[in-house]
């Protein structure tokens, strides 16, 4: 937009007037959305950013402007809170374990559907994608029953003579259980992205590789995976933003326990809001926003280099 003015010289005056008129019309059409967006999204977001520099709590809801500005104290409080640090660690484990596993499973499913499975392809596609579109709360409730002490999983393990742990009540197993559930749930998204990526690989390249004597494994490693890298990075960004904010799983299944072993950053923020510490919770939200933005930025840099 800003370049438009310099391009149109004195000769293009009529052109410029037309453009201005068009712009005005466009704004008029966009106005209903812009106004609503500004009122219900931009203002609250700006307000929460502002409040993160104050000492606002639930007691101030009647007089939200009657609070003290405390600068960065809320941010310092959050960063030095051992529970926040613990929650950051839990979230890091969840992300670092979850993303590679999800990518691997999504890739395996996509490869299988692309070349291995011959019949009932749509059925499989729907089956693997179904968890993505199912409500995460519903899924969590079902998984809580599967992972219960005398639940389905332990019944199956008992059939082969293994005494399974009480998954969700064990400090060792609760977080891995949630990671596995998230992997199962999100692999479908990546599968769809990877399938699209696989289908865009020209068959000629594959044939050429086969002619050169590359076996299936070699073709996968040297042809398919490098050509799939843009799709993999895109999938990685999409999934990591979701994983960094993981919340519903532990909210429904473990309430952050046992012994806070599944307390995520979002859960920490949620609890802080729950105690009415609005300013501190806003500060925690913005810290998380910075982390998510940074992670996404790094991934986009990688993505740009690869393409």
């Amino acid at each position, binding site marked *: *937009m800003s370049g438009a003015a310099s391009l149109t010289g004195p000769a293009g005056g009529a052109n410029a007037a037309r453009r201005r008129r068009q712009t005005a019309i466009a704004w008029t059409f966009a106005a209903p959305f812009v106004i609503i967006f500004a009122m219900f999204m*931009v203002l609250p977001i700006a*307000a929460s950013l502002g409040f993160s520099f104050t000492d606002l709590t639930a007691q101030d809801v009647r007089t939200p402007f*009657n609070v003290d500005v405390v600068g960065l104290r809320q941010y310092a409080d959050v960063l030095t809170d051992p529970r926040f640090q613990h929650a950051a660690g839990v979230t890091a484990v969840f992300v670092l374990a979850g993303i590679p596993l999800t990518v691997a499973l999504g890739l395996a499913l996509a490869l299988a559907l692309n070349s291995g499975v011959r019949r009932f392809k749509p059925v499989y596609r729907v089956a693997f994608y179904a968890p993505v579109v199912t409500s995460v709360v519903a899924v969590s409730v079902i998984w809580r029953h599967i992972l219960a002490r005398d639940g389905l999983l332990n019944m199956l393990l008992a059939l082969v003579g293994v005494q399974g742990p009480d998954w969700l009540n064990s400090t060792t197993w609760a977080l891995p259980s949630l990671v596995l559930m998230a992997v199962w749930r999100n692999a479908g998204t990546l599968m769809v992205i990877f399938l699209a990526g696989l289908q865009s690989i020209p068959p000629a390249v594959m044939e050429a590789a086969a002619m050169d004597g590359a076996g299936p494994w070699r073709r996968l490693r040297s042809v398919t995976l490098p050509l799939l890298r843009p799709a993999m990075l895109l999938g990685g960004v999409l999934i990591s933003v979701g994983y960094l904010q993981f919340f519903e799983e532990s909210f429904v299944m473990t309430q952050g326990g046992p012994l806070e072993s599944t307390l995520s950053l979002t859960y920490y923020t949620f609890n802080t809001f729950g*105690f*009415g510490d609005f300013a501190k919770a806003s500060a925690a939200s913005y810290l998380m926003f910075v982390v998510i933005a940074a992670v996404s930025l790094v991934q986009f840099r990688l993505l740009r280099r690869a393409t």
Partner: protein
Amino acid sequence: MRYRSAVAVLAGLATAAALTACGRSAESPGQAQPSSTVAAKATGRITMWAMGTEGELLPAFLKTFEAANPGVKVDVTAVPWDSSYQKFQTAIASGNVPDVAMMPGLPVFKDAFAPVPEAVRTADMYPGAVATGTMGGRLLEVPWYVDVRVLYYRTDLARKAGWDRPPATWDELRRLAGDLRKKAGAKWGIRLPAGMTGSFLSTLWMPWSNGGELMNAGRSAWTLDTPEFAAAYEYLASYFEQGLADANADPAPAAAVKDFLTGATPMLVAGPFVRGAITQSAGDAFTGKYATVPLPAGKSSTSFVGGANLVVFKAAKNPGSAWKLVQWLSEPSTQVAWYRASGDLPAVRSAWQDPALTADPTLAAFAEQLKTAKAPPQLVSFDKVGAAGDSAIERIVKGGTPVADALRQLQQQADGIGVS
């Protein structure tokens, strides 16, 4: 690019406006109290919010009040429990409050409540219940109904285990729990909270019965790292160490009732709600199989009292008539009628003399327990201290942290949270 900068300018302006307008004034607004008075006769329209079952039953129940006060119309809005906190918050922030509301404590909103006028008598109410409505030394909420914890136990299984009388002391309670497992085939002896939300509150009867206090006499500091608390938590932990209580029990209230009915966990410490749940799922036939008794005594038998109160908001549009309604709801005869309608236990002492309540053998324990039951201080910070207490209990029970260490840590956290 221009759009983005416009948005940025907008956001910046809003932030700047918000920040420049900030600053806590010494006087909080609304310090000038509107005088609370009770109208001689309720008139006009009274709006009322109530949660859960109460919200459903009130419209029919209030017909009597409307008949006694011609020209008055009470509009009851049923508010779901889950969203009640947010609803009150929004209402108070926007100034669009009802006249009267059912209020489960929530001292965080205390600045929005009008002080209770003298004419609404609370002298005949249980002291523990009155304490739940007292904030900052002033009565802001009128007790409506009470929820007090007593011991439920399966008399049939206890008899099988060789007990024909209820446990009276802490030591007896633990022995009965053991006998129920060994001799009566119960899976667990008793259900005790192991650190889930609410554990600290639900086990407060232990430190209290052991002479512990949450705060010092001047209410200027938390006193959680005391020998009384330590001994009480050692006692709590012993149930889990000896396998008498299940640290990983399903925390849902329905699960507690189910395990009680099947006999898997034949003892629990719970409020009056469980009576109703038992009758509802097992019918009257089950009444002979269990009993409610006062909590076994340590140095004393001191239970926890909660429940719900009634408030009139400062911003109420019809305050005089609203107080009239609150006054009517706290009359002994109304309290008995409300017990009949809802099963909620009266907060007014004399209502307990009514045959409707004295006839029910399972209520005697509640009447007894209410005389001495206590409420935690109504402070905003108590929510956080309670949550810290929950995790202290979890560390003791599930994490194997020594009681002394967990309490020292809890005391530090509580000191950090403060007493506001």
